[in-house]
Structure formats: structure tokens, C-alpha cells
């Protein structure tokens, strides 16, 4: 029969404790147990990148992990970045540069870019393209996404460096 395992995890700063089947994917846990449906599932085999979340600050494919593996860890999803009223500068840049069309792949691209921009505050185009090369987008052809990242880098660079 179904054996349940306890999992305690911090998502976007909130602690959740649940009992889940060990085989439950982290992506399904976030979406269907916690109702955080901003994380999308595009392929279930770790290629498309739509399900990317930050796991202790690092981007991971939540469709390739079990929820129980997140026990005791911290996760940030797209819902943890900004709000409709107060977009994160990266989200704002995606709007301004038209880096989003259907928006399905977008949450995974945003979560991939957060640590990238922390490590590379002034990336060039090639670096940006490599950074998002693990995230598939069928709508944009990526060009406006690259422009959005450049814009975000400008917005996010600390004032004293300007």
C-alpha cells in the first residue's frame, strides 16, 4: 500500500510539512500539494527547463527530483520573486523587452537567471545565451529574452558600481 514519508520544506520563505509518497515528484508536490502552479512542467525528462526552481539557491529541474529529497531544504519558485504589483527587476525587464509570449517557459527561465545574474552582474550576449541554453522556448526565438537579461543586468547592478 501507499507508504507516506514526512517532508518539511521551506518554499518562498514559508515552512510546509506534508506526508507524501516517496515517489512524488518535487514538481508535482509544488504544483498540486502546495498549489504553487507558477512552476510549469513541459517535458518530465529534464530537458525543457520549464520546471526549474531554486534549491538552496541553485537552479534545479523539479521534475527530476522527488519531493522527499527537498526535506530540510529551501526552495524559491517564480512566486517568490515578485508580485503583480511589485515585479522583480528581472520580471520587469522581461515585460519591457517583450521577453515573454505564451509565458509557459518563463518561470523556469526567470529562476535560472536569478543566480546567473548574481554571479555575472554584467554578462555579455554569449554568456546570456549559454545561461539560458538549457531552457527551451518555442515562442520568442530567445532574442527578446537576451535583451531582457541585458536590461535586467543594468537595473540590478549596484548603484555604487555605476
Amino acid at each position, binding site marked *: 500500500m501507499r507508504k507516506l514519508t514526512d517532508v518539511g520544506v521551506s518554499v518562498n520563505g514559508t515552512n510546509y510539512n506534508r506526508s507524501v*509518497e516517496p515517489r512524488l515528484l518535487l514538481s508535482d508536490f509544488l504544483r498540486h500539494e502546495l498549489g504553487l502552479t507558477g512552476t510549469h512542467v*513541459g517535458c518530465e525528462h529534464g530537458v525543457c527547463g520549464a520546471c526549474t526552481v531554486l534549491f538552496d539557491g541553485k537552479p534545479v529541474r523539479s521534475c527530476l527530483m522527488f519531493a522527499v529529497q527537498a526535506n530540510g531544504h529551501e526552495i524559491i519558485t517564480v512566486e517568490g520573486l*515578485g508580485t*503583480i504589483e511589485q515585479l522583480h527587476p528581472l520580471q520587469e525587464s522581461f515585460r519591457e523587452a517583450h521577453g515573454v509570449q*505564451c509565458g509557459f517557459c518563463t518561470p523556469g527561465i526567470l529562476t535560472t537567471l536569478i543566480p546567473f545574474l548574481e554571479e555575472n552582474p554584467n554578462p555579455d550576449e554569449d554568456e546570456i545565451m549559454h545561461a539560458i541554453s538549457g531552457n527551451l522556448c518555442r515562442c520568442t526565438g530567445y*532574442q527578446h529574452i537576451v535583451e531582457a537579461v541585458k536590461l535586467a543586468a543594468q537595473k540590478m547592478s549596484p548603484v555604487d558600481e555605476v
Partner: protein
Amino acid sequence: MTKKFIGKRILRNEDPRLLTGGALFVDDVDIPGMLHAAFLRSDYAHAHLRSIDVSAARERPGVVAVITAEDMGDEWQPGPPLVSPPPTVENVLFNSRTQVPLVKDKVRHAGEPIVLVIAESRYIAEDAVEDIIVDLEPLDAVVDLEKALEPDSVLVHDDLDSNLAAHLVQKKGDYATIRENADLLIKRRIVIDRGAAVAMENRGIVAQWDPKSQHLTVWDTTQAPIPIRNGLAARLGLSEHQVRVIAPFVGGGFGPKMMMFYPEEMLIPWISIKLNRPVKWIEDRRENFYATTQEREQIHEAEMALTRDGRILGVSDVILHDSGAYDPYGLTIPLNTQCHAMGAYDVPNFFSEVTVIFTNKTLTTPVRGAGRPQGIFVVERLLDLAAKELGIDPIEIRKRNFIPPESFPYDHQIIDQAFATLIFDSGNYRPALEKAADMIDFEQFVKVDQPRLRAEGRHVGIGIVSFVETTGVGPYEGARVTVEASGKINVATGVGTQGQGHFTSFAQIVAEQLGVDVSDVHLVTGDTSAFHWGTGTFASRGAVVAANAINASALAVRQKILKLASEILEAPEEELELEGGKVRVADVPRISISLGELAVLANPLRGAVEPGTEPGLEATAYFGPKYGGTAFGAHAMIVEVDTETMMVEIKRYTVVEDCGTVINPLIVEGQIHGGVSMGIGNSFYEKLVYDENGQLLNASLADYLIPSATEMPHIEVSHQETQSPLNPLGSKGAGEAGAIPVPSLFAQALEDALYDYDLEIMEMPLSPNRLFELLHE
């Protein structure tokens, strides 16, 4: 008149929700008590179904229902045909065979659903699928288009004499005679293989039957919510008003989500009613590769007749088109191919025969481009070869053959996918081509850069092509525009949205008419409870058909506003202007009234609404074009081939797009970028590989490669605006344009880069491996 909103790069209204994870997609729908569906699908492409044993599955805890074709009884019926064959062409032969909900006697393509399992969770449903034992007797599979018509071929549909699905001939002038008098005949066999649409969101359906209100609500990743509602009501024996279909945010469409009805689309609502429970089915990526429709596979025997100065006398194109296992979508794709096989050119004589074949492969229905890329590939390739043969420059030979701007409307005398006569409404092809050449510095490259680089042993090449795109076909769309008491505007229309920016571009049109901010226009789209007349988002028609319906509704509301404001402000209508959410007297701006106040006055709680008038500031209008507007443009690219690895690097890419009036250039550029990226995939990365048993060998995103950021060049886009005379906005569609000319361009540029190999590229898609083979053949 200068426009305030139309033609401006306005940021999208829908983005904040999409960027924060707050937009509703079908898989986000969660209803208490909801069950989950999974399908057992055939591993074989062609097989007799002998028996199914579902007993173990039914016993598994958490399983609620296990349904086979037999279990459906009389309710098992093949799907309705989506489009009928063209009635206006003589001697058209069409064998309609539509998809079945669950396999009853014979499997006709790998991935066809055999058993539906409903359980308390998707995990349990998939466990139960594993419990089922199916006895299939494999048959030889029909895979190859040419062998499919051989007399001894096995049959996909045993009740037919052959695998012939349809046959039709279209003619203009007299090609047979003109070819006798031609100075040059270019005849080639052209092979285009299959690709997938690969929307990032797979398909999905949630159905909820409410027995107390006798009402069915369906969330569906469809491009056509209204026809889905109508079809579901008919099939389930319900009134159309008992069914609400919502296409919420949809994660990319690209055509296959226009197919209807998929087996799952009928089964999930049906079983929800049977079980009296909400049911969700979400396609996984593997299912998407087998069960979602595909496109492009055709074989052409094509010929072009020319004079020695490079003028086209005629084109002949004999086409074999792969329909897959069934043909619910009729002849849409091959008709589009025929309609684009004359390209942007004045072709006086045309002969085209289409033979559509049933095969044991996934169904084909339109995918972004929808038969057009194949037609453009044929005409552009033949013209390239003629240019080479005659020693004419590729730009020059195109200029010599363009339909001249004064010849519009230009009647091609054949029928199009909407069964209307193919008429190009307007066009100005030459400047678009010249601009694309200028943007890529064609002369400089050919005269200076290329010789220098070739001298260094590098394989660099340039290509430039023209294309047309028939867009914005009927039958019609409608919209209702309402001024609410808050002064904000509500717009309801029927077309679904899959990322095209409708919430913004449609709002711009209303803002232009009513003098409000774009952010104050709220659009509801893809919900049959908000608007229930219309067809859907396909054939690059949103910005033409729906946009003009919205424009007409907004104009009617504007007239109501002016009439009422004129009475209240005691000023003639012609002296009033709509600005900043108010109506004011142009010369005396302090005399004004807000739209919200007017809306309240138009909908009084006391007093009378005069006979013959309507309450409120609201109007509904429809737009149906007689025929579609034809967009066009030119693409150019510079490539470099590494002849060791056969990798192709696109160094530069330029686009000149003419889709008539541009409502929002930012959005149009986004559409072009995405289209070009799909076209690059279609040219060099994306091929669905079927083996001789009809097995798809690369059914995952790890094996079927769509372009990622590192494969994409920077695309320079320029707009030209030749307005369509067929609609008040002057717009034409742009959704598919980007993808259409890319394969023909890619081939031309590669041949130029590999000049020392004397290569002819008459097939698509290529790959590094295939290029290696071609160079060593």
C-alpha cells in the same frame, strides 16, 4: 490621422500575471474531488486488436473506472470531420476517415489510445495502465508515401480500395502546352519530411459536470473553444448553453491545438458526466510526440518553365501529401501548399495535382506555416536553379517575376484553403526584397567579403528569398465592447490566445476608438460564457478578423457615447472628442463627462429607455472578410559551414515583413523571431524519424531537437506597410510568416556556401549528418 495607440510598442497587459506565476493554465485547475486520467496507448503502428484484459487494473485501489471501446457501447463514435473537402473544384475525390475515441478493432498509428483509466491520482492511473494486458497482432505498417499506393500495399483502412485519402487537381492557363515552348525547364523531386509543433505546454483537459445545474464546464488547451463547445454539446446531447468551454492561458499553440476533436477531448468530458466527478487529463511529452498532430511530410515532382531571360511561363507541382492515419482536417495543408507554389510571382500557367495518402503515422494537421513553407520551398528552389542555369543573379530573377504592384487584386484562378478563389489583395514585393538585400549588405558581401573569406578557405554563403503568406481567412469573428460604470472597458471575443499578445493589441484598437488607456481595457477571450460566436485562432487571422470585429464594436460604442454625450453636454457630436476616459467639447475642454458617468446614465434605474434604443454603452459586431489578405516579405541570411563537423553557423539574418497595418511592432517582431526559430528548426534540427514499422524513434526533447538560444542568430527585422483594402484596419496576419521562407532560404545559402561541392539541396529538414551524406554522395 495620426494614431495614438495603434502602431505603438505598447507593453503587454497580460505580462504581470504571466511573469509572477499568476496566470491560469489548464493544468493549474484544481477542483475538490477531481479524478485523473491516463491512457494506455498502442506500442504498434498497425495491428489488429485481439483482446484486452483490464481486470487487474479495475481491482487496483484508487482506480475508479477503466474504459475500453467496448465499454462505450453506442457512445463509441468516430470524431466529426473538422473541415469538409472543397465543393468548388471539379472531380475532387475525398475519403473521409476520422479518428476514433478508443481503438476498437485495429490500431492505425503508434500512440493511438486503447484504454482510458480514471483514478484518484495520476500516479495510480499510470500504475493501472501497467496492469492492463493487451493482445495486439502486428501488421506491416504503411510508412512510405510512394509505396503506400502500390497495389500490394497493406491498407490503413480496410474498407477502402487503396491508401488514397484524397485527390484533386488545380489548373490555371495551360501548363502542358506552355512547357513545349519554354526555353528552359527545371524539373526536380523535392522531399519535405515531418516535424512537430512542440508547444512548451502539452495538451490538457479538465471537465466538470455539475448535476444540480446540469452544466458542463471544460478547460481545454484548444485554439478553438467555441467550436469545441458546439461539438461537445452535439455529441453529448446537451444544449450549447449547458456547456462552457474555457481556453485559459495556453502555453503555445502553433496549430495542433486547433485540431478537433482529439479523442481525449471528447472522452474526458464524457467520462466526467458518467462518473459525476471532475476529471483532469494532462498529456505528457511522450504522448505529445505520438498523439498530438504533426506536419510537413510531402513529396513533390515539381517543374518550372521559363524563357531564356528568366521569366516564369508556368509551374507544375505534383504533390504526394501524408495525412497520417485519419484525415479530419481535410485538404487544408495541401491546398495551402498549392496556393504558395507560385510564390510572389506572376505565373500565367499552373498545374498542380495533389494526392493525399493514409499512412500508419500520427495525423497531420496544420503546424505554423501549414503547407506554405513547402509551397514556397518549391517555387523558390526552382527559381534558384533557373537563375544559376541562366546566369542571372538571384535578386534579379525575382524582380523580373514579381506580380507588379499595379496588378492587385491579383486573381490566381485556383481555390484556397477557405475554398475561396485565391486572390492576392495587395502587395509591393520589390521594395521588400531590395530592403532585405540592403540590410544584409548583399553587394558588399558578394563582391568583397565572400571572395576574401573564400580565399582563406572558408565556406561562407548568402541567401535571399521572397515569400507570401495568405492570412486572415473567414468565416468571421465577433466581439462585444462594453463601457462599465467604472469607466473601464470590457471586451469579449471568441478567439483563444496562446501568447500572441491579444490582451494588448486588441486593447490598443479599443483604446484608439474610445480615448482610454490601453491598461483600462480588459479583454476576455477564449471563454464561451463571455462570447460564444466565432471560430478560433488559426491561419494568422487574429489581428485581421478578430481585430476588425473589435474595431467595429468599439466604433459602434463610440457612436453611442457621442450621441448620449451630445445630449448631456448640449454640444453637437462633431465638436466632441474622446480623450483620457472622458468626452469633452474640443474647444472648451472643461465641459466634459467621464465615460463611467455616461455608462451610468445610459443604464438608468428609473425612467425609461426610449423604444428603439438599447440600454448601456455596449455594442456587438462581427467581421467576416470575403477572402484573406496576403502578407509578404523577404528574408536574407549569411551562413558559414564548417566542412569538418558540418555545423552551420548563421552569421546574419534579416527580415522585411509586410503584414499591412502593424498594431504593435513589438509583438509582431516577437512573432517573427519565434517563426524564424521554428523555421531554422525545420531546416536543420527538427525531423521526426519514423522507422519502417511506423515507430517514432526520437519521441523526446532529448532526441528531437528544437533550437535553443545558442542556435539562434540575431534577427534584424524591418517593417513595410502595404495596407489590406479588405478591412478597415488594413491589417494582415503575421503569426506564421517567420517560419515560411526559412527552409528555402537555408537551402540557397548553404548551396552558396558550399559552392565548390556543386550541391543541390532538394530536401528538408537537413542535419549535420545529412549534409555530410549529401556532400559525399
